[in-house]
């Protein structure tokens, strides 16, 4: 943008129905914005992201020759891509758009203070308008996408994703840390709602994958290093036995690292008797027509399941979530085993058999006279083990009575928690995690399979507690995302990289040590040698720009000037911009 090309800014304030307008006086905000320097148009609209809102932006850009657009609506983490596309369709560079977050950061968190919220909204719009005036055109860059995918984790989700991608004609490197494929599902004797064993489901999948020439399977292996950017990742895979490392180049990544069953130490006498086991351990017992008591080898007569073990515990970090699979898995197991025991009880906090065919399992278990007894969430059942005998006491909510029972076997339906190396994975691929410890998707509703690391997808229980069918749905979805990128062969990348101004560089090397990616080197051809950024390696964190003592580094789209002008607009607004009109 040349200097004589003055900013002509359009400001669009969104009501978001009642979401913003219910708290913030959007008309007052738009009115204030209309008086700001550079603003040639300002309005408020019901839904800026709707077709009508988008058309309005495009029309006004053309009609008034706008060269900057500010939309004050929801979080840019949600709709920045939408509005960037809109301005681009009207011939404006996407980097000349700026978004103000009036919903997540104002109306929703200040619902009881409409006046102060409106003040805050005005400040934020004023800051954004000031920034907009300083925004600059940046080129839109495209890079090639290598036609191969790294799949991390060979459980049911990883296998499905691998097969989907390979069958569409792209190479897959499947990395599994264990010595065999199949993950948790492979261990299970009974899957709900079908009557198949895990092996029935997994083995054919593995066979088909092994026949596919496009798939390279690396067992006993882990990803040890990961760098690069969407379309062009460099992966190092280490064999855990030989410690040998192998390097690969891939275009996309699907993370299917799944879960591990929670080991409920300290819960319901777990560990005090071999006859108290988890549902996962029950599933791993050798197949037999009769269910045998582990300690005595005699047939089980009285069987008890306890639900929500390590799940749904408010205030306990990593255990607050519902593990989703356990109610249905318990109903299936209790219903199946009811025929082989005299009595089967399920002690539960709530029953959530939400999936297709799951409620039928619950109904079948009840029809077979599995006894369901509800306990209060703040008064959990107590298990005591004396001389090998298990005694269970609890309060039954519906009967309003204290009950007791002496089972031969107790099965704890434990939580799904992330695998113990989840932190390692999250650092390798720069993934953030949610409160339950699993990986965050890019957006929970709009982009549940992609992550904030462009080119890296997540599927299955890597994202949250899920059952096998849901994991497979995810896996096919994530595979489609990866294939979509690779089939196009090219993808747009952000142009917001660091740039060294050679004339200002004092060759001090500070930025070289600040950069986490080794993206800055010294250009020895230059006399004197100056720092230079390899743009493809730059992830645009801006650490170098903040570290440079000579202010020789410009962070495109996040320049010092663009940042400080916002600070100034907030704290030292020009009098006419205060909202009261010119004096």
């Amino acid at each position: 943008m040349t200097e004589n090309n003055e900013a002509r800014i359009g400001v669009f304030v969104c009501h978001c129905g009642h979401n913003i307008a219910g708290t913030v006086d959007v008309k007052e905000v738009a009115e204030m914005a209309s008086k700001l320097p550079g603003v040639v148009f300002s309005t408020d609209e019901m839904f800026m992201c709707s077709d009508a809102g988008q058309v309005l932006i495009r029309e006004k850009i053309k009609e008034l020759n706008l060269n900057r657009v500010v939309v004050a609506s929801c979080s840019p983490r949600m709709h920045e891509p939408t509005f960037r596309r809109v301005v681009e369709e009207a011939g404006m560079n996407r980097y000349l758009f700026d978004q103000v977050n009036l919903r997540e950061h104002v109306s929703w968190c200040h619902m009881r203070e409409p006046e102060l919220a409106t003040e805050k909204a005005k400040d934020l719009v004023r800051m954004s308008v000031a920034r907009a005036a300083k925004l600059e055109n940046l080129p839109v860059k495209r890079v090639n996408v290598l036609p191969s995918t790294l799949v991390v984790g060979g459980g049911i989700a990883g296998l499905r994703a691998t097969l989907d991608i390979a069958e569409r004609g792209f190479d897959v490197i499947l990395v599994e840390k264990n010595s065999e494929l199949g993950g948790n599902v492979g261990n299970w004797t009974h899957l709900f709602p079908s009557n198949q064993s895990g092996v029935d489901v997994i083995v054919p999948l593995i066979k088909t994958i092994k026949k596919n020439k496009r798939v390279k399977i690396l067992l006993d292996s882990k990803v040890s290093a990961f760098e690069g950017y969407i379309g062009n990742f460099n992966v190092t895979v280490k064999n855990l036995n030989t410690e040998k490392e192998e390097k690969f180049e891939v275009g996309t990544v699907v993370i299917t690292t799944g879960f591990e069953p929670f080991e409920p130490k300290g819960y319901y006498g777990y560990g005090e008797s071999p006859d108290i086991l988890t549902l996962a351990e029950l599933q791993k017992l050798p197949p037999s027509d009769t269910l045998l008591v582990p300690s005595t080898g005699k047939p089980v007569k009285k069987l008890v399941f306890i639900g929500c073990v390590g799940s749904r515990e408010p205030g306990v970090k990593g255990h607050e979530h519902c593990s989703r699979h356990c109610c249905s898995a318990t109903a299936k197991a209790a219903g199946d085993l009811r025929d082989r025991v005299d009595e089967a009880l399920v002690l539960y906090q709530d029953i959530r058999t939400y999936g297709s065919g799951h409620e039928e399992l619950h109904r079948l278990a009840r029809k077979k006279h599995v006894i369901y007894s509800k306990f209060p969430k703040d008064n959990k059942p107590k298990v005591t083990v004396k001389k090998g005998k298990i005694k269970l006491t609890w309060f039954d909510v519906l009967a309003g009575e204290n009950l007791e029972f002496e089972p031969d076997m107790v099965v704890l339906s434990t939580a799904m928690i992330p695998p113990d190396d989840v932190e390692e994975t999250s650092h390798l691929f720069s993934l953030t995690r949610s409160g339950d410890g699993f990986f965050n998707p890019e957006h929970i509703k709009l982009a549940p399979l992609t992550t904030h690391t462009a080119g890296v997808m997540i599927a299955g229980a890597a994202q949250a507690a899920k059952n096998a069918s849901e994991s497979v749905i995810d896996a096919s979805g994530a595979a489609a995302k990866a294939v979509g990128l690779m089939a196009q062969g090219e993808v747009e990348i952000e142009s917001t990289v660091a740039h060294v101004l050679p004339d200002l560089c004092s060759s001090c090397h500070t930025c070289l040590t600040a950069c986490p990616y080794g993206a800055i080197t010294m250009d020895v051809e230059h006399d004197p040698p100056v720092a230079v950024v390899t743009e493809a390696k730059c992830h645009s964190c801006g650490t170098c720009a903040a570290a440079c003592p000579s202010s020789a580094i410009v962070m495109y789209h996040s320049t010092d000037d663009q940042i400080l002008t916002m600070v100034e607009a907030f704290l030292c607004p020009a009098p006419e911009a205060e909202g009261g009109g010119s004096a």
Partner: protein
Amino acid sequence: MTVAETVTKQKEWEPKIMAYCCNWCSYAGADLAGTSRIQYPTNARILRVNCTGRISPEFILAALEMGADGVLVSGCHPGDCHYTSGNLKARARWAMMETAIEQAGVDPRRVRLQWASASEAQIFADGVRTLTEQVRKLGPIAREWK
């Protein structure tokens, strides 16, 4: 400005807080605070940067000089940075910056460095509340400049 407005402004001083948040953790945490309808003081104005590593001490000093009563810097937990280590650089600069502002006559209680992940909406909101209340007790910044 009308007389009535001037009077109101003098009567109800509200701390002005400049908040620098990284895009990946704290800005997202603030988004989640909104989505979860967690209510917190309106005083902070959030400015989004990619990483706390982008925040030069100059940005904090400039905000104080321009009249911010407090400055909040909020990023990913150490070890959880989207860019591996930008937040560690921010933390290292922080120690130096705190000394600098103290020497300039600014109470270091006016600045706050905190870690709040994308899922820690409550921690983010609590941080804004803590700093706002702290600054409210200290009064407007103009009093302190030496």
